[in-house]
């Protein structure tokens, strides 16, 4: 019997060396290809190989997929694949009753129980009584299946993630072909390893079919998405591609100056593959040189970007100020992680907002925008570049670990579908030109790059004369320049769309979000709206400046609740901008995304208050 489901959440969990991320990614590829909506949440320790068998070392990959209603990776799994007791322990508190747990029984022994922190055997002491547990001898069946290939024990066990994946494919009636061909490509030069992985994948699939212990097999119907060509994409990959697209539409070369840092490094990895597109990349000696080389490239006429995460932002601060002062186009990407200091490198948080807005010396206004889904990292990279080039300003583009590592289907945007970007380049001598002349609407200066005849000029970090750009310590001039730099950023609001909100008839509660929590917030509000609740939702991508109609939206509602993964930074910012409204807060700072159930509880609590 097959059960058709609207959406399902599956989670692969095991030791950080067990290949759970690979199993998750392959599953994601396959489900995306059969046309499901998907949202993923990879969750792993910052150690490369954390202590084996311990809860600290558990690596997980959660996938929510289905035909509709997939706005988040899901609060908790319907099906958990736990490769050892630690993986079970790490997820136990989140499991909902009657969910299915597939465990590798081969690792369920006293030694592993102790390491995981179980007092006894959870299979026997009633811990798992509420769940549908399937005990599969994954490790031993993996080894049996590979006995004739001449592999050592370690190499054989490395394939056991594919056994788990095979089970998952059978459960959801997904085709194996994508993953089988993946191994042919990946291990072209080592056919034995390719064969081993393929064999184990099939073995897992056959096993699931044979035991039929798995109550029924689910089928998730394809989503009803807009027509078009799609591909699966992670946020960091989409971000990289968005910059490639933006440089192309600006008819400029792309330049990346950066330094490796989790969780932003995949943008560097992705762009490094695409030198064919003309992208110039410097992996610098430090974060400072990363941004400084980008500033130099911007001065010389490239579309310059730098990518980092919170601690790297801290190091780049002084250089961002230089880009503000010299009014050069530059995009600074911060894929946020938990802080402060080194904090939680692999976990998600939205706690660098104030740093982005205000974390510089002096009056140093800057454009700040944020992506909100893995796929729209493409669009926001494009938009950040447009603002930088057309308004001659550095732009901080905020992403999050949750977005950067998360994946979803992306409706491909071909180059011809994107608008042109118009850099403010002056290519031939103009006798009226001065380095700090501005256009009347945007207050943006021109971009005259070295090599342009007759317009040799000097810029720098010292305060400059309003017009000539020469060094000036004149008090009135400084006052004027502070205002101009401020107004220039504010005027970006004239060139961005108005803020939208969902829930036109609602008046009681407005849920406000920003950044990467969009899907989860949308999902929670959407469910309550379907129940007929008086609730609306607005989500911000433009942070500085805010869209011009922001106050008009706020004034329609009795209560405004700002939900974010920090102590209330966006709420505090909104209070500064709009002191006339009362902004309530719902915050989480556990290094994890919101859960729909927690959001709904909070929303209902407010809605139930008179």
């Amino acid at each position, binding site marked *: 019997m097959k059960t058709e489901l609207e959406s399902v959440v599956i989670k692969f969990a095991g030791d950080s060396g067990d290949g759970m991320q690979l199993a998750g990614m392959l599953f994601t590829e396959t489900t995306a290809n059969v046309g499901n909506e998907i949202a993923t949440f990879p969750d792993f320790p910052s150690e490369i190989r954390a202590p084996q068998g311990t809860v600290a070392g558990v690596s997980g990959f959660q996938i929510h997929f289905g035909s509709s209603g997939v706005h988040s990776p899901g609060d908790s799994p319907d099906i958990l694949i736990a490769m050892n007791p630690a993986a079970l322990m790490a997820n136990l508190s989140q499991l909902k009753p009657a969910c299915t747990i597939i465990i590798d029984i081969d690792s369920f022994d006293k030694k592993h129980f102790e390491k995981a922190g179980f007092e006894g055997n959870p299979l026997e002491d009633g811990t798992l009584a509420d769940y549908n547990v399937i005990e599969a001898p994954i490790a031993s069946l993996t080894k049996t299946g590979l006995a004739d290939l001449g592999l050592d024990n370690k190499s054989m066990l490395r394939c056991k993630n594919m056994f788990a994946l095979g089970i998952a494919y059978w459960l959801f009636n997904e085709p194996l072909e994508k993953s089988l061909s993946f191994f042919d490509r990946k291990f072209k030069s080592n056919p034995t390893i390719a064969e081993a992985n393929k064999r184990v994948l099939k073995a897992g699939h056959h096993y699931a079919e044979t035991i039929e212990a798995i109550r029924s097999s689910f089928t998730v119907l394809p989503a009803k998405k807009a027509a078009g060509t799609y591909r699966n994409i992670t946020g960091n990959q989409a971000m990289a591609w968005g910059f490639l697209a933006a440089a192309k539409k600006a008819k400029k070369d792309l330049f990346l100056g950066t330094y490796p840092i989790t969780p932003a490094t995949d943008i560097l990895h992705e762009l490094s593959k695409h030198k064919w597109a003309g992208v110039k990349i410097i992996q610098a000696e430090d974060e400072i040189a990363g941004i400084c080389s980008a500033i130099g490239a911007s001065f010389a*006429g490239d579309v310059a970007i730098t990518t980092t995460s919170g601690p790297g932002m801290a190091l780049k601060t002084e250089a961002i100020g230089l880009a503000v002062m010299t009014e050069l186009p530059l995009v600074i990407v911060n894929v946020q992680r938990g802080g402060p200091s080194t904090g939680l490198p692999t976990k998600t948080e939205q706690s660098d907002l104030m740093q982005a807005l205000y974390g510089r010396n002096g009056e140093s206004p800057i454009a700040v925008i944020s992506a909100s889904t893995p796929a729209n990292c493409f669009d926001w990279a494009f938009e950040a570049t447009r603002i930088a080039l057309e308004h001659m300003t550095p732009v901080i583009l905020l992403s999050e670990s949750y977005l950067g590592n998360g994946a979803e289907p992306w409706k491909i945007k071909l180059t011809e579908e994107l608008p042109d970007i118009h850099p403010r380049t002056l290519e031939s001598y103009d006798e009226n030109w001065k380095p700090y002349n501005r256009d009347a609407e945007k207050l943006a200066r021109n971009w005259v790059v070295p090599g342009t005849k007759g317009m040799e000029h000097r810029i720098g970090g010292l305060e400059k004369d309003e017009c000539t750009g020469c060094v000036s310590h004149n008090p009135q001039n400084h006052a004027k320049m502070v205002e101009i730099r401020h107004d220039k950023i504010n005027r970006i609001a004239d060139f961005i769309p108005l803020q939208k909100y969902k829930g036109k008839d609602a008046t009681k509660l407005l849920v406000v979000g920003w950044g990467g929590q969009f899907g989860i917030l949308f999902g929670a509000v959407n469910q309550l709206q379907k129940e007929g609740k008086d609730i609306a939702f607005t989500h911000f991508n433009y942070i500085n400046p805010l869209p011009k109609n922001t106050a008009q939206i706020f004034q329609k509602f009795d209560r405004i609740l700002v939900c974010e993964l920090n102590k209330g930074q966006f709420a505090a910012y909104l209070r500064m901008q709009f002191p006339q409204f009362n902004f309530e807060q719902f915050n989480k700072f556990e290094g994890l995304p919101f859960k729909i159930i927690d959001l709904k509880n909070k929303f209902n609590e407010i809605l139930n208050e008179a």
Partner: protein
Amino acid sequence: MKHKMEAATIGCPLKPKDFASDQEVKWCPGCGDYAVLNAVQRALVELNVKKEDVTFISGIGCSSRFPYYMDTYGFHTIHGRGVAIATGVKVANPELSVWVVAGDGDALAIGGNHFIHAIRRNVNLNFLLFNNEIYGLTKGQYSPTSERGKITKSSPHGTVESPFNPLELAIGAHSSFYARVPDTDVKLMTQVMVEAEKHEGLSLIEILQNCVIFNDKVHAAITAKESKADNQLILEHGKPMLFGAEKNKGLRLKGLELEVVCIGENGITADDVLVHDEKLENPTLHYLLSRMSLPEFPIAMGVIRNVEAAVYDKSLHAQISKEQENSKFKSLNDLYLSGNTFRIN
């Protein structure tokens, strides 16, 4: 040559003053920086480079005001980061002649990391290191090149740290070109700057520069008229290493050390004196030359090392060109539509 090989002018050459901006030069009267500015402007004329193809990038410090005084493109950046910014400029547009201006504090203290890495990468830049062994703009603190025990405002009891020799750092970072010049010798500075621009790779020029206010006469023993002939060895490629008013003193190797010899004494002849070879792949002799200090030795001046090495920005662009030829992708659409895509109708 670092810049585009396209003559600036035909018939009517530019003059040094054509490279001077309209800004009033605001260094202290008597500052060594004036002579450097003069030499740079002369070198650019000699190189016949177009003004728009020249960019000066500096960090923070007295000497870092340099770009404001040049009628070329210029960028006065932040402390220590000039060469990191210049690296971006050069990679973005390799046809520019890019000059970095930095003091000893800027290049070797706050910017030490960028200094060694720019040299290691061999970015095609000219690096003018103004070494006056003091912080000038912040009014007289010791720097990473101040001698041990130096008394300054921040070291009233003398420093307890030893200085860097910038050229030793450069050798450690596998520098392909380094030179040393005194700010008192405009002709030599000009010559060396021309050589620097012609060299492919990072050309480091240490300028022994005098700060009249906070460290006056720090290099006087080297540069004073009456002693300079004995205290400077001006190196020329292919010429014997001779110095002294009579040009009768020279250098030779004694084991792993250099020694000063006098021609005509103890049977020493001109043939015993080392001949300078700036192209030596092995940097050992260049290292010994760069380490020479008073009073036992003269100070080595001129181009000490000038060898061929892979150039960063060229290699980076060569890799891009190769990928452009060989990649299966010819457009972004090719990329987007590659691999696993699926259609929804």
